[in-house]
């Protein structure tokens, strides 16, 4: 136990924070502890947390994808436009919408790998461009009145009390964990994140891995956009706007290094539970949304600051302890 905590310092801290959050929530609201609320807590943010899973790969890989929320909006807008135009069956429109997300990811991935441009810049352009495309497609309209089966996907339950999107999330999470931490591909993601040069010299096809991650990111974002449309029953050009910030926040709070190379799926899951529980608890206690955002912002700044300060403190003091892998500390160049 103690060993685990030293090895997984950040995860251990998150467990404490999460436990504290739960205790505070129970004290704040008598309605917090309930199975229905537990489902709602995930359901209300389901699109975000689905994208968080794939964003974890991208950031560990040493890249970032700022375009995810815009791609969500773009995919949903493509589907809604096709539905409105009555060109293809709705199910086909959904597939085309998800494919549009995949293509968005592919395009950005190609620019990043072929021209060696920083993903921060390329996906920032994607953030603006795909949002623009969504708004051009839908103008100021709100497209709704989807077939009933579609809204049922977002609103009704599949297994017991769980909506389809929730089941999808948990299944995806397990698959993602296996790929990231138990497969050769996952090892490559870490190695590239630590040093792309070292990875290249070791014969890892760096660009291919990166490209696949960006395609995955676009595809999952597209799927999330469609799930969003199903959940709320309407699509606007602004769908998902600013979600990239919440998504990246959860990944970084999970101890994934913004410089790439380190982080774990467990940490991200704990961070995601923590953020959702903070929002839910404060919401049930009728505490303002602005304060909720403030609390989460403070947590994020703390998550970057504390490990770095701790590391500096350890370095100054000739400590006997071996340097534990600081969660946010940058890896070697």
């Amino acid at each position: 136990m103690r060993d685990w905590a030293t090895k997984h310092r950040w995860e251990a801290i998150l467990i404490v924070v999460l436990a504290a959050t739960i205790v505070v929530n129970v004290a704040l609201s008598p309605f917090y502890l309930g199975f229905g609320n537990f489902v709602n807590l995930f359901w209300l943010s389901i699109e975000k947390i689905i994208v968080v899973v794939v964003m974890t790969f991208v950031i560990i890989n040493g890249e970032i994808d700022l375009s995810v929320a815009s791609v969500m909006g773009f995919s949903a807008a493509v589907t809604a436009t096709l539905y409105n135009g009555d060109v293809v069956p709705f199910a086909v429109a959904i597939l085309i919408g998800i494919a549009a997300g995949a293509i968005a990811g592919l395009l950005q991935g190609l620019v990043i790998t072929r021209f060696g441009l920083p993903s921060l810049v390329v996906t920032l352009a994607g953030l603006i461009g795909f949002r623009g495309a969504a708004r051009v497609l839908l103008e100021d309209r709100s497209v709704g009145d989807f077939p009933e089966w579609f809204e049922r996907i977002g609103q009704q339950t599949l297994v017991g009390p769980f909506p389809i999107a929730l089941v999808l999330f948990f299944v995806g999470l397990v698959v993602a964990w296996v790929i990231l931490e138990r497969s050769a591909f996952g090892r490559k993601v870490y190695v590239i994140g630590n040093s792309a040069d070292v990875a290249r010299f070791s014969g890892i096809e760096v660009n291919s891995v990166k490209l696949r991650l960006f395609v995955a990111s676009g595809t999952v974002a597209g799927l999330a956009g469609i799930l969003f449309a199903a959940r709320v029953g309407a699509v606007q050009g602004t769908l998902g706007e600013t979600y990239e910030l919440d998504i990246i926040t959860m990944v970084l709070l999970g101890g994934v290094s913004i410089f790439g190379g380190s982080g774990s799926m467990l940490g991200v899951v704990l961070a995601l539970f923590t953020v959702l529980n903070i929002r839910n608890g404060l919401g049930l206690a009728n505490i303002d949304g602005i304060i909720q955002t403030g609390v989460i912002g403070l947590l994020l700044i703390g998550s970057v600051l504390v490990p770095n300060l701790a590391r500096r403190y350890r370095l100054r003091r000739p400590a006997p302890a071996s340097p534990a892998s600081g969660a946010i500390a940058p890896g070697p160049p």
Partner: protein
Amino acid sequence: MTAITRRSRVLGPLVVVALVVAACGGDTGETTTTAGEATTTAAEATTTAAETTTSAAAETTTSAAGGEAVEITGDGAITATFLPKCTNIAVFPQANSGAEEAAAELGSDPAEFVGPADCGDSTGQIEFMTNAVTQGVQAIMLSNNSGDQLDAPAQAAADAGIPVVTWDSPIPSATGESVFVAQVDFDETGQVMAEMARTILGDDGGEFAILSATPDAANQNAWIAAMEEVLATPEFENLVLVETVYGNDVAEDSVTAALGLVDSHPGLELIMAPTTVGIVAAAQAMEQEGLCETIKVSGLGLPEEMAPYVESGCAPEFALWSFVDLGYLAYYVAYGIATEQIVAEEGAAFVAGRMGEYEITADPTREAGLRVLMGPFSKYNAENPGT
């Protein structure tokens, strides 16, 4: 240590901080082109009652079908949620103060006043509705900003036996909704806006544009649809509606949208904003650009916010109703239903404290749903600044 490491160490935290800062900022959406889905059906709004400021509605008629009006009285405290479109627009705290006044009169606890911080956040209300159901409140009072997107959570509330009383802006399909407390008759709003436009533009008419709230705002969409009906009549044929744009009830977005109108329509003479945020933003933009001589502003506005623009001539005339009264009446209705003093059905009549007698009727402006009509309209201008 290489240069790359040093740079990335500085850059990393910077990126994080920038993200946090950006997360706190508002969204700036560009706004273009026309019409959200109109949610209302037909209007026979052709009466030319003109100068009158009183609602045509049956404000104090005794109910024919429902028999005696029930006086809603204090019957213990209830828990309730008062959910506005957003919390940062002046009219919504005003409405809440009316609800608090009603709660105090009835010996109940004030409702929780919660909602999205930003009216541009069209899906934010879903979370608040869901939380209210989880909390098991006894009534929800809602001004819908999410079109049909609240159908599912409103139905969940209804399934849990929680009355959902909408005020200001209804649920278009009426799904899960008990009754809608309408500020004014939605068809009359179209009529009043058309009349104000004609007063300002004169009998020769001219080009005007509409600056609305969000494309999903059920009330604004209904008013615009009603106004378009009125504009189609011969009397108003000289008034040319060139474009409808959306400022999302966010001040910056509305200013941008207003300036966009000026750029794209050189012949524009009037901006009609059926939202208290849009009208102030438009007046402010016209004043700053020195355009008040050529482009006037009208619509629905708060007298205290509009006073300087009435004085400067930017906004010769606008209209509104009392949001305090609206919140007060909404609370009475929600309390009456929650304590089973009244039933949300056609013909039910009741007395709501200082505001007198009302009746629940079918809502003529929607295909389904019940309505309590408040009224009346007040028009504000240089003679009646309202402050």
